[in-house]
């Protein structure tokens, strides 16, 4: 296992983009229930922008992440998109100057991203957002080294969290007003994250 390199990242961009063909409509539909129905179209645009962004010549892994962060930030100003950019920026800072990162570092990198997203968005773990699935992945992958195992555990944790939160009330953003209505409905940001983790994991 070569660890996480720019090539890993390029490959990941291809995989998530491919998954958007069906995911875009699913996420729009999920966001339509209590939000403004644009999660899918926004994510498709951001990931599409990644696809158009050439990171192969990046100085190092960190700057590849930062290039993607800037791409995300320029493609949208939506909540989820900006949080996504924040996460990538944070991981980019942490991997600045390095060629690769070890798979065993992934959990810590994601934890740093999670902290930055909490800081930026003002929501907490437990509010039924993308943060909860990310938090679950952080925990499930801590101490693991093998990419394949990480993939399997991440996917399992993400899906378990999605299921666990489905019947809980949403505590932030637009859906907050409809805490009752939000029970039984997946949070679109969390759903998107889980589906992308699944897509990435299935290639391992």
């Amino acid at each position: 296992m070569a660890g996480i390199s720019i090539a890993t990242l390029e490959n990941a961009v291809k995989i998530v983009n491919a998954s958007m063909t069906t995911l875009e409509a699913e996420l729009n539909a999920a966001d339509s229930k209590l939000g403004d129905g644009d999660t899918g179209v926004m994510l498709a645009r951001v990931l599409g922008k990644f696809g158009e962004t050439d990171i192969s010549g990046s100085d190092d892994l960190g700057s590849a992440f930062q290039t993607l962060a800037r791409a995300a930030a320029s493609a949208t100003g939506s909540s989820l998109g900006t949080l996504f950019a924040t996460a990538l920026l944070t991981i980019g800072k942490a991997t600045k100057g390095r060629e690769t990162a070890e798979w065993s570092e992934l959990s810590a990198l994601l934890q740093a991203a999670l902290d930055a997203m909490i800081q930026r968005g003002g929501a907490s773990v437990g509010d039924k957002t993308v943060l909860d699935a990310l938090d679950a992945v952080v925990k499930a992958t801590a101490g693991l080294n093998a990419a394949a195992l990480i993939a399997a555990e991440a996917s399992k944790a993400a899906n378990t969290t999605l299921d666990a939160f489905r019947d809980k009330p949403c505590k932030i953003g637009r859906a907050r007003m409809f805490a009752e209505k939000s029970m039984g409905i997946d949070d679109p940001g969390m759903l998107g994250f889980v589906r992308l983790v699944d897509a990435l994991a299935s290639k391992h």
Partner: protein
Amino acid sequence: MKKLMNAASGYVDEVLEGLVLAHPRLKLGGSAKRVVCRSEGVRKGKVGIVSGGGSGHLPLFTGYVGRGMIDTCSIGNVFEGPNIDSCIEAIKLADGGAGVLRLYGNYGGDRMNFDMAGEFLEGEIETTTVLGTDDIASASPEESAKRRGVAGIIYAYKIAGARAEEGADLAAVTQTARQAVAATRTIGLALSPCQVPGAAKPTFEIAADEFEMGMGIHGEPGLWRSKMKPADEIVEDMITRLLTERPAGHGGRVSILVNSLGATPLEELLILYRHAFRKLKEAGLAIVQPLVGHYATSMEMAGASISLCFLDSELERLLAAPSDSPFWEVK
């Protein structure tokens, strides 16, 4: 839904190009031309006011760029916040050396981007923030800070803009903006949806004989749905809700904005205004500078909102001050 447009990908940029061609007092700025600015620039020493938000709400936000109003505005895609770059650029372009007030609606994406922009500019430009939170249907009075900003934000533009124009410093302009927001309440209703350019479907569905009270300007669910009712009954409910939150000790002078969400024509707004006028009079309130028209829309959504700005003498003075923005001029 049919739209007079070209490719969805060019929608926002073409709209902005048309806007500045039609209104030479405005020009585009920023690396991606996603900032609308005053062509004459910002007077040196004046506090700048920047706003921003998603596209699809014209004349909000860009139409209120002008002397005595906001100085610049960063524009996002339809119903999305403006991106960080455009927020940074908008703040810079609003800077006259006396600091910049960030005055925009309370939406997650907008906040994150304006916050990050402010952090990028730390040490360079002093910034403050006031969020529009006028939509009373979007959170309870106890959680009023969590409310969304809708049409009523134009009162804060006008009032804070006048205060900046007369030379107040950043703290004073910020304080005035906060007072204007605190004095303003809005409630809206929707009759039919709009469609985001390029989207496959309208933003929501609603039966042919129903309306929804309290719906947000992106189609966020409101308080309740009901079969259509006579306009006077609907107005009665709206005004009652707005007056329930009349600020304690308020002196009895209000400005009212009866706003079309897009497709609802002026005829219907005037029918609403007529009854609102009566109800406010009954409540002992005097109307100052009423506004009836298209001030903050959701493209072709049908529906209307009513905003009240509960004035004190200072707010009223600032509301009456001159402004020359394309969509709200005061002489």
